[in-house]
């Protein structure tokens, strides 16, 4: 059953990835804008999903992402992933994330990310997830996260602006270390 579901959604997902245009997801608000916001399709029963985006601060003052929420999940947390000595750790960013004046901060796999916790329903590829981001200065900024297919081989190049696409950007990574 779950097997067939997985296959079916795989096919759907691949098909929808083809028509998915890399749209600009953010709406500028008070000098803070969100670019290339995306998440991944989830499996039935999967309780969480990661959210990725680039936050651009066009103002002359530092701002800070304090909170996030979405109708798609019971809770949206701001997390950071680190890997030390081969151990992967994920921690909430209790004090939020500073967005430097005139700067941009990437939320990407294996680094800073949003975590959708308690998904109300599986995220289907080709759909979008509305998210409200709350900044210390700019206040609430809405963003639309595109749901990418998990297994689409073209997942990486689907969005040219995606800085964290693993398939095309890791050619310089070393894998000799343990």
């Amino acid at each position, binding site marked *: 059953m779950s097997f067939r579901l997985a296959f079916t959604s795989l096919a759907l997902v691949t098909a929808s990835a083809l028509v998915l245009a890399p749209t600009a997801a953010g709406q500028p608000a008070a000098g803070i804008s969100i670019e290339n916001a995306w998440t991944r399709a989830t499996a039935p029963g999967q309780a*969480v999903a*990661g959210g990725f985006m680039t936050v651009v601060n066009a103002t002359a003052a530092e701002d800070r992402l304090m909170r996030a929420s979405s109708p798609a999940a019971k809770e949206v947390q701001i997390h950071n992933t680190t890997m030390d000595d081969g*151990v992967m750790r*994920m921690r909430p960013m209790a004090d939020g994330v500073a967005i430097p004046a005139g700067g941009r901060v990437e939320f990407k*796999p294996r680094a800073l990310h949003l*975590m959708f916790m308690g998904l109300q329903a599986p995220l289907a590829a080709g759909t979008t997830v509305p998210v409200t981001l709350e900044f210390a200065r700019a206040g609430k900024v809405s963003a639309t996260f595109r749901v990418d297919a998990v297994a689409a081989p073209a997942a990486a190049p689907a969005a040219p602006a995606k800085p964290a696409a693993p398939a095309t950007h890791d050619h310089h990574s070393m894998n000799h270390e343990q």
Partner: protein
Amino acid sequence: MMRSPSHRVAAVRSAALMLAASALAALALTACAPPPPPFNATEVKGIDYGRGLGIADTEGRIRRLEDFKGEVTLVFFGFTRCPDVCPTTLLRLRQARTAVGPDADKVRVLLVSVDPERDTPAVLGAYVKNFDPSFVGLRPEPADLPKVIKAFHAIAEKVPVGDAGDYTVDHSGTIYVYDRRNRMRLIARPDFDITKFADDLRRLAQEKS
């Protein structure tokens, strides 16, 4: 004109030297056949992590390493509530497996759950198959988890998050690669280069089982 004895000795000596030199060169060419190029991932030998271990798959069958004899088997720890690294790694493992080419079906990925309390067989099964139908989820009984983790000299630690009794699991990101004869041959980090890792896997897949 006759050579003086000393001349003759010198000639013989230099001829012998030349012979010796060419013999050495020949030896260097033949006896030292070029060693196989190193793998991209870290090569290991004589490590028997996981040997004899039996862990239930998401259909409830006990699976052992030996069940995957003939396949290049990758073992990786994770859990379905890991929103970032685990999906990213599984996706990249899928990409590496696909990049192996015609021998891709000889490459098997096993995800061992470090959160069996929340990863029910149904959830874990749907999760891994969402990445690739060939991936297998293994779910140790919660009481057996420490033993499984220890068998791989790995780490898995629950860490509370938020205030509702929620937790995350810090865990080893190492990918253990076994050859078709169940010998652990490589260990890779989750940030492996997809193309180079696929080259490694293809080489192992083309070895005799």
